[in-house]
């Protein structure tokens, strides 16, 4: 859920921004051919940036640096991303490094 742009707002966590991009993925995919080149490029870059964050979370998960609740959130993200791989590949988006071998 996106936060309100108040003057004192706190930036979203990586979990939140990754989830937001992932939630938009089906909608973006259905509109992909109609998007401008700039919008496709910018969205791809933003997606790649979120996948970099996921990789960082993966490193933390692997070394026991995530809380139990964060570990569950991470696992949920990875599971959802694995299911979305056909869309990710079709759009030529950056694969999450944690699933590169999938």
């Amino acid at each position, binding site marked *: *859920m*996106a*936060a*309100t*742009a*108040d*003057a004192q*707002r*706190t*930036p*979203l966590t990586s979990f939140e*921004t990754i989830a*937001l*991009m992932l*939630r*938009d993925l089906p*909608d*973006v995919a259905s*509109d992909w051919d109609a*998007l*401008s*080149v*700039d*919008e*496709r*490029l*910018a969205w*791809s*870059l*933003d997606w*790649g*940036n979120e996948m*970099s*964050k996921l990789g*960082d979370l993966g490193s933390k998960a692997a070394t026991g640096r995530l809380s139990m609740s964060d570990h569950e959130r991470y696992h949920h993200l990875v599971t959802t991303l694995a299911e979305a791989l056909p869309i990710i590949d079709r759009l*030529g988006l*950056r*694969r999450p490094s944690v699933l590169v071998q999938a």
Partner: protein
Amino acid sequence: MGRQLSSVDHLILQAAAGTRSLAEEELRHVVELVARVGFDPLAHEQARGRIAGLRWRGRILAAKDPLPPADKHYLWHVLANGEWPDGTSLDDYLDSIRRVILDPTTGIFTNRYQGEWSLGFLRESRDLEGPGSRGWLLVQYRVSRGHWTTAFQPFQGLSEISQPGWSDIRWLRRPTHSERP
């Protein structure tokens, strides 16, 4: 490609192809033009779910609301991701991009991203570093469109341009690293 390329765009493409090394004056001319063009003021993109719910220009944004690219990038990178310091306005964001493009310590490179030729700028974030920044600021100017594609502070920092999707990187000027205390 519907737009007629400018002389600056041709210089960029020649530099990208390695068929021409830009003289200092030519590079300055390229940089000054790119700094001026900004995001496309005539384009509109859907806010989509990741921006929906934010209060912007007096209303709560809905996913289908159209936004100029400048607004959308600001909302996502500055407000949602905190890549710029707290309190950074849209004008501050845009001015900061121009400053980075014009800064002589900024690295400048040509590249392809998903096959599209661009001119890229990479500089340390310095006073533009927000809580979500990893210390580097990246700008992309797409040649065939003649406007900025994006400006953000990548999670991978300088290593972003080594990630999948990026290709044909050719440095026209390497970034200058600040001396660390």
